[in-house]
């Protein structure tokens, strides 16, 4: 059994419990143990206010994981990006490193630099691998056509991710989708931004950005959008309802977190995958899968 510290971040455990639940269930079934530690915010939201404060927050999390002898798994791409970038800058920026280590020491913590952080989907791709995932599929999702959304920080800035996937036209999530038998529709502009970082600054602007991907999904006539970040998920799922209400337009495009899609293929129940918490209803999508448990509470 592989063990990782589960870095949940702030948003997933409060606003995307369907993502968290499906991740935990899928991980358990694949023999990946996720250990909960008292982590805090990754530091990313604080970077715009004060970079040094963000660095301290990031490195406290690393110190905690290292003290437990574990690498970290994340589910939020913004957390992944911040933790990865900051741990790199920690090594490069000697002045800030010394300042941060001094601050950690006052809290009884230290960090030697041994902990690695990766997104859950990346661990599925790199450590479990598509062949082993294919072997875990019991329900073929061949009836579904989906459009992937990588989100920005899953692959960018590329130099922080050491050659994992292409920062402009990534493909690893499409490969993970195909594991389930579902079709991953090919479209240009794989790098659009969901707009979520601007939700609290200018909501209309943020929702206008989100709508671009919804229009793409509608044009491609897909059964669902597949995402790997709670911010993208909230933008497209809950945000979709707001866009529909505000602009009197109808999209009705279910938004699935990748573990929800994979979990269906692995035979996990709709309840275990948290479908009752999806804002855009998924019954139509589930109805296309003969033999898959249909009892979704809404």
């Amino acid at each position, binding site marked *: 059994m592989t063990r990782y510290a589960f870095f949940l971040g702030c948003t997933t455990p409060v606003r995307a419990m369907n993502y968290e639940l499906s991740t935990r269930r899928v991980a358990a079934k694949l023999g990946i143990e996720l250990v909960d*530690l008292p982590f805090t915010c990754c530091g990313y*939201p604080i970077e715009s*206010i*004060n*970079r040094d404060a963000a660095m301290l927050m990031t490195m406290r999390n690393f110190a905690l994981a290292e003290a437990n002898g574990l690498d970290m798994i994340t589910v939020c791409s913004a957390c992944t990006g911040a933790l990865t970038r900051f741990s790199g800058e920690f090594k490069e920026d000697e002045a800030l490193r010394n300042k941060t280590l001094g601050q950690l020491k006052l809290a*009884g913590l230290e960090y030697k630099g041994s902990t690695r952080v990766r997104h859950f989907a990346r661990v599925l791709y790199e450590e479990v691998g598509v062949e082993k995932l294919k072997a875990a599929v019991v329900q073929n999702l061949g009836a579904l056509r989906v459009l992937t959304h990588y989100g*920005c*920080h899953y692959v*960018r800035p590329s130099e922080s991710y050491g050659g994992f996937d292409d920062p402009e036209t990534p493909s690893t999530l499409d490969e993970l989708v195909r594991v389930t038998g579902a079709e991953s529709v090919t479209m240009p502009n794989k790098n659009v*931004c969901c707009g979520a970082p601007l939700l609290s600054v200018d909501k209309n602007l943020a929702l206008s950005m989100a709508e671009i991907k919804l229009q793409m999904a509608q044009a491609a006539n897909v059964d669902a959008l597949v995402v790997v970040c709670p911010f993208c998920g909230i933008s497209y799922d809950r945000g979709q309802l707001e866009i529909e209400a505000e602009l009197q337009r109808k999209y009705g495009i279910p938004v699935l977190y990748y573990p929800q899609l994979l979990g269906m293929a692995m035979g996990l129940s709709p309840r275990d995958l948290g479908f009752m918490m999806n804002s855009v209803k998924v019954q139509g999508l589930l109805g296309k899968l003969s033999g898959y448990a249909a009892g979704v509470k809404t």
Partner: protein
Amino acid sequence: MSKRDSVNASEINETFCRQVLAKPGGERFRACFQCGTCTASCPVRAIDSRYNPRVLVKMVELGLRDRVLKSDALWLCSMCYLCHERCPEEVRFPELMTVLRNMAVDAGYIHPSYAKLSSIVAEQGRIYEVDDFINMRRKQLGLPLVSSDREQWGKIGTQLRFGKQ
């Protein structure tokens, strides 16, 4: 800033440019030759003309400190890193943006949404409070309670400085 806005010599702050260059993340901006790849790549600019990364770099270069730091546009970057990937001069625009936002905060021009955020983070270590309602919902779903170590966090939270250091 619209194209028609002229620059008044009295607005030019000669030390601003040097201050930006001296900060980690600000070192590369003088390499910009105004090609506009950033602006052409920008998903925010595609929708909202208030925001233009190329013009922002030029304004910093011209030393228009107050206009830059007081600008609403400073808070409109979504940090998607597309300009970062494409810039032929490796200006590292998102890092420059962080430098400018940090300087704006130090000068007292924090965006209200970020001001709210910093106080809850300092206190709780999170951007959303995990209250009894959330924990009850989590319990119903079979999710563990969100683990926290308030005492440990206190030793870090009290060291965080969000304004001028």
